[in-house]
């Protein structure tokens, strides 16, 4: 049953598992002052895995283990950007973790296991693989959220995340069992045909509802968003950076894999389109409105995430290859923007100072103009103001909604963007127009890799606003087949 071919298809994942095990062992035997070795090795593992993904990419989609695992363009792009996000997380968090005595090998091991979960999730060919990948991702994430175990807020956030996450996983699994009951198959490729001739369409519908609850929870779409602000605020910023980037890519991948089975020509398309439209509107409204009153930047960004997931859902509502491409483009752009925003927070934080209140950024332009500029790029991009990258992502989403004939959704999204503009501009206002607090240091960490990579990451938002064509072409290609 297990063939050599299967192993070749799974080579990046197998390599990652092996490398993480080595990393875990190695870290147990080195002295704390040699932790740099773990750090750099983890980065190398990430890069090599990315290289294996690219170099092993087949021309046509292939499956392994009887269709349990799919390697196609969509999987490649999502895996690559998830690995890129993890790379950024590693580079950005070293000084932050060091200052807080959190610089342990477990951080790297858990993050890599989580990204392994992401890789399985986005290339799942069967309901079982979806669940497997999801659990690997979320279980690692729970531990990462609780990573600062002496901090009460961190533990509280982890408990909340765990309880609600378990509920969502249960709901997803329950829905899957119903879908299986209605169709008799777990294979996503066969599900499309099987669902058309399902004996019990109501059972299928129920199953789908439960699955959508699970998806909405993972995305953080309202009204299943309650965990998100607490986790963002309570968890170590390094962990949040991961959750805001790689995790969101994974959530999109999961939604795409599960829903494409019920996609164009598929049954009950209208039902789930309507459900997603409702989720999108709620997310846009709640996310943007509640973000306005936040004073904690991480919490504000959490609500902004909720709003951004609303936009992403608009692409999924379209349920055509163009719509999926727009949503994928959006997920990637969001990952790139949020890593910049959290990267600046990580860079400005120091021992005993989290730098996560909006007021902590007062007068940043006078103390550290470059960091202020990078943060401004992230904020303006998140707000979707041209010429930054975020605008083009938003444009594609609006286009997808209009193409789907849902002009009203596009108008709701447009109004939401106006509301959103206010709180992003508030951060710019604090940095540029307010005077710095006397006696506060506000200098970025002197960590060179952090500064350079963060600068490149932020400037990419400008560069990609000119050269977004290739990325879009790539996203379109992923769903063209």
């Amino acid at each position: 049953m297990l063939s050599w071919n299967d192993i070749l298809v799974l080579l990046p994942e197998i390599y990652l598992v092996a490398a993480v095990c080595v990393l875990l062992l190695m870290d147990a035997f080195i002295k704390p002052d040699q932790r740099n070795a773990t750090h750099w090795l983890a980065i190398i593992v990430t890069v090599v895995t990315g290289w294996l993904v690219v170099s092993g990419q087949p021309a046509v989609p292939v499956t392994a283990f009887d269709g349990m695992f799919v390697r196609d363009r969509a999987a490649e792009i999502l895996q690559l950007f998830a690995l890129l996000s993890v790379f950024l997380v590693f580079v950005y968090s070293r000084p932050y973790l060091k200052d807080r005595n959190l610089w342990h090998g477990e951080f790297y091991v858990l993050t890599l296991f989580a990204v392994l979960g992401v890789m399985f999730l986005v290339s799942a060919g069967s309901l079982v693989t979806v669940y497997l990948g999801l659990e690997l991702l979320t279980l690692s994430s729970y531990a990462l959220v609780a990573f600062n175990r002496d901090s009460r807020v961190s533990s509280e956030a982890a408990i909340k995340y765990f309880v609600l996450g378990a509920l969502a996983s249960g709901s997803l699994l329950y829905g899957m069992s119903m879908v299986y009951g209605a169709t008799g198959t777990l294979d996503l490729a066969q599900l499309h045909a099987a669902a058309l001739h399902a004996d019990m369409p109501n059972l299928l519908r129920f199953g789908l509802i439960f699955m959508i609850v699970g998806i909405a929870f993972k995305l953080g779409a309202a009204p299943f968003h309650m965990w998100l602000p607490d986790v963002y605020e309570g968890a170590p910023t390094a962990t949040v950076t991961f959750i805001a980037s790689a995790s969101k890519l994974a959530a999109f991948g999961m939604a795409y894999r599960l829903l494409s089975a019920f996609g164009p020509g598929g049954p009950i398309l209208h039902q789930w389109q309507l459900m997603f439209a409702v989720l999108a509107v709620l997310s846009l409204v709640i996310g943007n409105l509640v973000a306005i009153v936040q004073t904690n930047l991480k919490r504000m960004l959490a609500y902004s995430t909720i709003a951004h997931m609303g936009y992403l859902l608009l692409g999924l509502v379209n349920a055509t290859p163009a719509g999926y491409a727009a949503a994928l483009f959006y997920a990637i752009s969001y990952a790139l923007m949020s890593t910049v925003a959290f990267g600046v927070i990580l860079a400005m934080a120091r021992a005993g100072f989290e730098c996560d209140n909006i007021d902590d950024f007062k007068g940043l332009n006078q103390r550290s103009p470059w960091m202020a500029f990078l943060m401004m790029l992230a904020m303006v991009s998140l707000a979707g103001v041209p010429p930054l990258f975020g605008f083009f992502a938003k444009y594609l989403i609006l286009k997808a909604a209009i193409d789907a004939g849902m002009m009203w959704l596009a108008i709701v999204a447009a109004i939401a963007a106006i509301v959103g503009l206010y709180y992003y501009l508030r951060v710019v206002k604090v940095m540029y127009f307010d005077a710095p607090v006397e006696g506060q240091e506000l200098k970025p960490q002197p960590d060179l890799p952090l500064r350079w990579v963060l600068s490149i990451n932020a400037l990419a938002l400008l560069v990609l606003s000119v050269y977004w064509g290739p990325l879009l072409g790539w996203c379109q290609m992923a769903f063209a087949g």
Partner: protein
Amino acid sequence: MSNHLLSLLIWLPMAGAVPVLIAGSRSSLSRWIGLLVAIVTFVASLFLLTGYDTNGPVMQLVEVHPWIESLHINYALGVDGISVALILLTTFVGVLVLIGAWDVIKDDKPHQYVAAMLVLEGLLIGVFCATDALLFYVFFEAMLIPMFILIGIWGGPRRVYATLKFFIYTFLGSIFMLVGLIYLYQQAGSFDMATMAATPLTMSQQSWLFFAFLIAFAIKIPMVPVHTWLPDAHVEAPTGGSVVLAAVMLKVGGYGFLRFSLPMLPDASAHYAWLVIVLSLIPIIYIGYVALVQEDMKKLVAYSSIAHMGFVTLGLFIVFILVRELGNYDAAKLALQGSMVQMMSHGFVSGAMFSCIGVMYDRLHTRQIKDYGGLVNVMPWFALFMVFFAMANIGLPGTSGFVGEFMVILASFSANPWIALVAAFTLVIGAGYTLWLVKRVVWGDVTSDKVAAMKDINGREAFVLGAFAVVVLGIGIWPEPLVHLMGGSINHLVHQLAISKI
């Protein structure tokens, strides 16, 4: 070079912002680099006059590069006579604001100020060059960012409120335009503005799009009742910000009507022309009265801007009555020409007025009319300029202010004498608030010791005001070259409007 002249004009100032920022705040180097870049841009823009053939095709100096091929989005640039005039206005003002602010922002991050100005200039030129609707939109929106920073950092006490209001207000308008543009793109299959203009649309489609665009451009111009951001933004902005805002940014709204609403939606524009005409006449009267009671000089000039821009929209939409109902093409051309001349003239006059107020503000740090009085006794040269620009603001014959207003009133008279009567009323109210301002500030006895200690304008300030004065006088005495420059493009537009797209 002529093939890439437009790209050069757009990107040179923006690229110039980088060395300015690197030069830093300590030396005057950053200001010199910035000024050099602005001057080179201005000189380069003069080549437009030789490169543009008034008898040639509609769009000239065309540059098209594919941007996003799968969506048929191009980096497409081109200019007609209208664009050339507005680009020259932009580059001219771009030089003068940097000279005007030379000593004023010396101690407060001058490099960032200069860089923001240069980026703003490049983006404004981009707006006037773009022939691809998405590219236009990108420039149209992007210019909010440097202006946001300009008002927010170097503005007055309530700058944060004013700049947020400015940004969110304008963003509100343009996001609906984006939705409209995407819809139009869906119908036309391309973002090319000429293709969009040639695409047939039903009346209901046109109506929806018309209102989507109307919100965007009406806020930008601004028209009543969405004008409230302008007085706040003007009052709080630094002098240079006010000058650019009044002289160039407001013109983007009028330009948007010319490029989008009129040619793309001629039937809806004709149908709702009455609405825009009414909305233009209201500020001409009402805002004039509002200006009369202002105690803050900048606010007064800001309100007078709204009244003057009312003439622009009046001229743009009176055309539909002339063309569609009366078939009077000559009067229609006159109206459009009047609108354009009014836009240019207002650019120079309002820029000069704000510069004058800036000169006073730099000395006394107040904009209240009551704090001044009898300036003519201590600042005779300044008084000369101030009175001259005030006359231009009123629309005295011989200044540029007269030409545009006269043309629009003349054209309106052919459409409906009553409209012309109401519009002409502005000359009375305009004279009222402007002359009263001059009387209180310039004439009379010196009112306080502070005023008595004010020094007359120095060479730098005299240069800025003098340059404005030359142009205002030039257009006023001999408007023919400007009218000729835009004549062909306006002819083309008038014929476009006459044809129904339904």
